[in-house]
Structures are given as structure tokens and as C-alpha cells.
């Protein structure tokens, strides 16, 4: 199976609560879901966001939603204080999901 960008197989949305982000990854076609389950481990996602996560990289969690062909990644600490205290331009981390779509699967 040739390597592809995640963006060709899936779409994504990011939510925030406090200083935790959750990023959904949803297969366009349900037959691609097993490939996402195999390739997109919590460790891979943590590695992709290593610079932003810092010491929080080991806390990334993954939940599986096979009925809708989706994975949900939870990244505690990535928002560094959350929307109310963060100094970041995108304090909600809204654009994080778009960055994940550039990962190779």
C-alpha cells in the first residue's frame, strides 16, 4: 500500500476544553477506517505534535468509533493554559486538526 497524506483519506475537526484539545479523524470511506486504526496510533499523533506537546506527549489518548469510521485523539496540555490564559495566536487550537491531515499514512 503506497503512502498517502491523511487529507486524502479523512477529514478532521478540533475541539477544546480547558487546556485539552480533541481532534477527530473521520474516514471519507468506511473501507479506509481499518487503515487509519493501524497507522494513526496515539504515539504517531504525539510525535507529529511533539514540538507543541513537549512533556505532555505521553498523555495523548485515542478512542475508536468504528460505527462512524472515526478516531478521536485527546491531547491534554497542548493548549498551554487554555483559551483564557494562552499567549498563542490560536488559543483554542482550532487549526490543529488541519495540521494533522498532513501526516503520512
Amino acid at each position, binding site marked *: 500500500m503506497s503512502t498517502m497524506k491523511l487529507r486524502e483519506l479523512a*477529514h478532521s475537526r478540533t475541539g477544546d476544553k480547558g487546556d485539552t484539545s480533541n481532534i477527530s479523524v473521520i474516514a471519507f470511506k468506511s473501507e479506509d477506517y481499518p487503515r487509519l486504526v493501524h497507522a494513526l496510533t496515539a504515539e504517531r499523533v504525539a510525535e507529529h505534535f511533539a514540538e507543541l506537546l513537549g512533556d505532555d506527549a505521553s498523555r495523548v489518548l485515542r478512542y475508536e468509533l468504528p460505527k462512524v469510521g472515526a478516531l478521536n485523539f485527546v491531547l491534554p496540555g497542548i493548549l498551554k493554559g487554555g483559551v483564557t490564559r494562552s499567549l498563542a495566536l490560536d488559543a483554542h487550537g482550532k487549526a490543529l486538526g488541519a495540521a494533522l491531515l498532513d501526516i503520512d499514512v
Partner: protein
Amino acid sequence: MKTLRIGSGAGYSGDRIEPAVELAEKGDLDYLVFECLAERTIALAQQARLSDPEAGFDPLLSERMRRVLPFLGRGREVGQRRLRLISNMGAANPLAAAREVRRIAVELGLHGLKVAAVTGDDVLAVLKASPEQMLDNGATIASLGDRLISANAYLGAEGIVEALEADADVVITGRVADPSLFLAPQLFEFGWAADDWTRLGRGTLIGHLLECAGQITGGYFADPGVKEVPDLARLGFPLAEVDPEGRAVISKVDGSGGRIDTATCTEQMIYEVHDPAAYLTPDVTADFSGVSFHPVATNEVRAEGADGRSRPGTLKVSVGYLDGWIGEGQISYGGPGALARAQLARDVVLERLQLTGVVFDDVRAELIGVDALHGGALGSRAAAEPWEVRLRVAARCAEKAEAVRIGNEVETLYTNGPYGGGGATKGVRQVVAVASLLMPRDAIKAQVHLEDAS
């Protein structure tokens, strides 16, 4: 079989009003719900109330009411759907908000409209009485001292149900969990028991799907070439037609822009969810792990498979407090070599902040267009150097005077920095931070107040 049609008129405080008016006019709705309270909104509203006792509710409340109140109760006389409103636009002052709704109703000649306010979420006095309590960030209530602004519990559907039982046309609340605003009319109309966890879980899914309004109808979805959204400029807001079992079809008004399909529904279902099998609300521990979506027609999707378990024993309380100041400055560099000049400007500002001894707790200097959103490693994946780059320096300071110096050191790059910078801006804002704690639910009681109809 009786069904209930619930529309979503706002996904946040500043949301667009036109799609809500469209729903009120053409949605054939029983209920229109406006969800307008983000995590920090109440703390900001409480600050407004401190300077004006009649303030502290949503700044768009009056305009929204002027636009949609004329549609209320219209169908009742002709045996059609009645249309009532539910909203958390009361923010830090639901009673004043309810008075304002009554005032506008009278102004519009809508006599006899019943307006109810739900209070009880404000637990600031309770917390102040036990200052040893600890927030999730490790700080005690006592340590916040006079920086403490607000403390509001997330209420469930109960108070709203009571207001609907009292025949209110408009129900205005403060902090209520977002999905509970939508669960309440289902509980009331279908008479579900408060421990019918499966149906409460289903009703909560519907609430969660609707609570961000346009985010399920194609808002925050378009990605040209990959995900197209037709007529995004005229994006419609969603409605759900629910049956007494809690089965629902999500749709929107014919002729409105946007799209509803399994892809948009799935994105919204997982939005702001952590464990999909345990979505905690004051009413139920909802389980979305078995949910599936099925297209039934163009822009109509059936949601099924939600479940629920017993509700948590505690309620979440959101605490707002003052946490210093953020000073910020920005300036743009353009043309050949813009990136190197912006990088030099960044180094110069950081060195000057050190040389002049500006006191800050934390600083961040980023290049918009290069590394601001995702950091330098991911930012370096860009195929070519950008034509223009914007330096942004922000720092959190305990003192306002120190925060002012951050923007100044960026602005002075005009005459003291690299070549070719322009469009400098600077600003200072007070930080209203939010943390949370859990309280036993018997310490908190929703109360309903009816504004006199006249």
C-alpha cells in the same frame, strides 16, 4: 405520532442572527434554542454587571429578541406548532435579561408573552463561604482573594422544564450545560422520567449535535477541492425532528445554504468530546460510542444508537478570576527576504525586553505565516518562503504597566528595527482566566422566576 421540532438559533454569543430568523419563520418549530455561553463568557458578563446592576446578559439579546419574538405563539391559534424560545443569554444576570425580553415584547405589542428566568447557577457566595476548596489547577479559592469574579455551576434541564410547565414562552437562563438547553423541551413534551438514561442519552446527543448551530450544517467544514459546501454564504442553521423515543432526523430549512450529511454530523458529534462512551452532563452520562448516521434525503440525516447511564453525582462549577495582563504587538514584513527580516525583528524585540528589564511571567514570539499556529517543525513543511510574514510578540504580566511595554517594543521597530516593516499594532488586555471544580449536586438548586405578563 407526536414529534417535536427543535431548532438551533446560535452556536455562540456573537453568532449570526439571520439564520435564526429564517428558522423562526420557516422552520415550523416548536422550540428555538440559542446557546450563547462559552467557558469565559459569564466571567466577562459578571464584570459588566459589577459596573451596572442591570447589565451582565448577552449583548445581542435585545437584537435577537426584536427579530424573533414576533414569530412566537403564532401557530398556536391555528392548531400548529407554537414556537417557544430557550436561551442561556441571561449569562451573569438572567433576571435582568428576562425583564429586557418583557420590555421588548411590550414594545413590539406582544402582550401576554410569558417570560421566565432560571437562576441558581451562581454559587459565588457558596464558594466564598468555604475558601479552602481547591480548583483543578491547584489554586485554592482563598488564594484568589479579590481577583475572584464569578462561580457558576452547570445546571441541567430541570429548571427549564419547570419554566415550561409554567407555560413560559421564553425561558432565559444563566449557566446551563449546552445540551441540557435542548434536552429540556424533550423531557417536558415527552414526559421522560429523570432516570430514563437511554432516552436522556439520546436527547443529549440531539442537543450536542445542535448546540453549535452552523457547525453541523456545513459551517467550519469547507475545504475547497476536498470538502465542498454549497452556498456557504447563506448557511442555514439546523433543526431536529424528534420522536417520543428520542430518535431524530437533523435537517435545515429548504433553500438555505450549507450541507447536512453523515460527514458533517460525525464531525459535530465528536466535537469537544473526550471519551465518546462517557459524555458527562448534569442530566446523564451519555454514550455516543454506538451512534451511527443514515441519510434519509438530501440534507436530512437520521441519528441513532445513543445511550446513557446514570448522571454524575457532582456538578461542574466554572470559576472566573483575574489573572494579570497580556500585552501584545504585531508588525508585518514583506517582499524578498521578509522571513529573515522578521526573524531578526523577533530576536531584537526579545533582547530589548531583556535589556530593559520588562517583567513578565511568560512570553511568546511567533511569525504569523510561518510558525504561529503549529510551531516551527510543522511550519517548515511549507513549499516556499512566504512573501509576507507578521511578527507577533505577546507576554503575560502581573502589572498592566509592564504589559504596555511589550507592544511598545514591537511598534518601535518602525524606526529601530530591520528594513521593510509596516502595519504595526499594539494592545493590552486584562486576563480573565477560568478554572473549575466539582460540587455535590444537592448544594445547588435551580429556581424559576416568572416575569408578569401585561
